[in-house]
């Protein structure tokens, strides 16, 4: 599984997940998932609704701990680390459904992304950077996040995650419910963020866009990984083409 030249995929794994089992209440949602993200990579998780993509992300960020298996980040185990400590280690997330703070302004939401940082001037310059990536957010910076459109909220959620200065960025369905023009834009920005040195684990319904952007991909089915390969190889894989790229 070598990099396919689509990005600057390094060799050192930043995130290593081995054989995790995670439950939602009594539902056995992840039945032994193993995957890794290497430094500088974009890795995508594909799969139908309920396959376990979001649960995988929630296992990583500490919101839904696995009962078995281990998760290591930069060589250190984080399987049982509390969610609020994991972001300090360098993993930030733009979660499913965006989960902005609806009654806070855009600026306040972005500030919340940098909650665990103390470097005030750096935070300010990072916010400028987010506004450069998403000029729309700057226009709306005093607006309450809950009153913005879906696309604007998505930008704000990604911007908020960037404010943590993550080494690894988890993106859950960044294109969900967005107009096609926004989808293109979001994926451009994902590539841009990656080129600036952030590794990305991307969960996406839009398999074509995701595989275009990613270095490697995993395909999940009912809590198990059924396929793992380079993005380019996955794009030509017959199963993937049939199931996720909508070709007959």
């Amino acid at each position: 599984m070598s990099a396919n030249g689509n990005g600057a995929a390094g060799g050192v794994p930043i995130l290593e997940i081995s054989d995790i089992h995670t439950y939602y209440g009594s539902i056995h949602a992840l039945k032994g998932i193993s995957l890794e993200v290497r430094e500088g990579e974009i890795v995508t998780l594909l799969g139908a609704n309920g396959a376990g993509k979001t649960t995988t992300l929630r296992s990583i960020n500490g919101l839904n701990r696995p009962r078995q298996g281990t998760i290591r980040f930069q060589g250190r185990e984080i399987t049982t680390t509390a969610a609020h400590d994991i972001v300090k280690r360098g993993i930030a997330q733009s979660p499913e459904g965006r989960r902005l703070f609806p009654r806070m302004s855009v600026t306040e939401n972005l500030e919340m992304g940098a909650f665990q940082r103390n470097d005030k001037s750096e935070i300010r310059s990072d916010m400028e950077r987010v506004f450069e990536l998403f000029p729309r957010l700057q226009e709306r910076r005093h607006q309450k996040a809950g009153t913005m459109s879906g696309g604007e909220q998505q930008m704000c959620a990604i911007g908020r995650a960037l404010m943590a200065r993550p080494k690894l960025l988890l993106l859950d369905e960044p294109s969900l419910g967005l107009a096609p023009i926004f989808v293109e834009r979001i994926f451009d920005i994902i590539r841009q963020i990656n080129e600036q040195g952030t590794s990305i684990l991307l969960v996406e319904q839009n398999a074509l866009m995701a595989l275009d952007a990613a270095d490697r991909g995993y395909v999940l089915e009912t809590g198990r990984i059924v396929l793992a390969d380079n993005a380019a190889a996955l794009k030509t894989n017959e199963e993937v083409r049939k199931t996720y790229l909508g070709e007959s």
Partner: protein
Amino acid sequence: MAADASASTLPTRFKRPTFIGGLGGIFVILLVVLLVKEATVSPSQFAQTTLIGVTNGAVYALIALGYTLVYGILELINFAHGDVFMLAGMFTITFGTHFFGLHHGQGPVTVLIVFATLVLTMLTCGSINAAIEFVAYRPLRGAPRLAPLITAIGVSFIIQDVGLAWKGPNYVTAPDVFPHSNVFSVGGVNYQWNHLIVVILTVPVLLALLWLVQRTRQGKAMRATSQDKDAAAIMGINVNRTISFTFLIAGALAGAAGTLYSLWATTVRFDQGFQLGLIAFTAAVLGGIGNLPGAVLGAVTIGLIQSWNEGLPWHMPGSDWTQSIVFSILIMILVFRPEGLLGEKTPEGG
């Protein structure tokens, strides 16, 4: 889960039936006419009862803020809150008279003792409230909402029984240390120092609280946690600690209210938390539960209504009816304006 979050948080344009709006308007106009009539029948009595109402309202505000803080962060009506306020009155008596030897007519040292008692009571009640959260509510964090609500009622009874066992079934007397001399006396309207002190001590507490929630890092964590706990956690906020902190602050406010109320009313009984707690809860709902300035506005409104009802001379129902009136207000608010006077409409409708 994947539903569009923007749709549910956008202010929904709910058109109220004009009939009901008109009824509400007529009701408010009738009230104003009634008050104007009262004011012309006996201006001095009207002014006097208004001043007392503001004092009452100040105490209610301190209690109502505790309800609103806790509701804001957990969406839990903490029925035990009024009883923590009652305990605060008992602690005031214990700390004040038994520890510090507080009694009537000590001169300037009274100020120091009262202040020490106030701080100690606030610390004690804050810790007790945080402990209640840890023992009774935290294990139910994932349970359906009804479970912690019923637990809260249970905790309320437990605290009442503790109060009953501790100080007995009768009124316990607190030392009467606030001066009763007049601040001013104009045209038969007297305003006494013991009333003014309550208001003077309440205002800085309220300002400090607003500053804490709106300006500090901890306040930011509180607001974020109240809006979305999972999102707060992945921002690096320790959600459990933030909730504990909120209960600590709410308890400290109940402590302040208990000290002021017991020294002002000079009596404490094990069941007073129930009644005053319900009044303060109504105030919090009236102002918009979860909204801090709303809780203060609601509390002063309820304080005024109570005092006008009990003190005005011209065809007022009188003190027998105070509770009926307060709870009629609660019902009307829930029917006509569930978001309260200052509350924002939320997807949950409250």
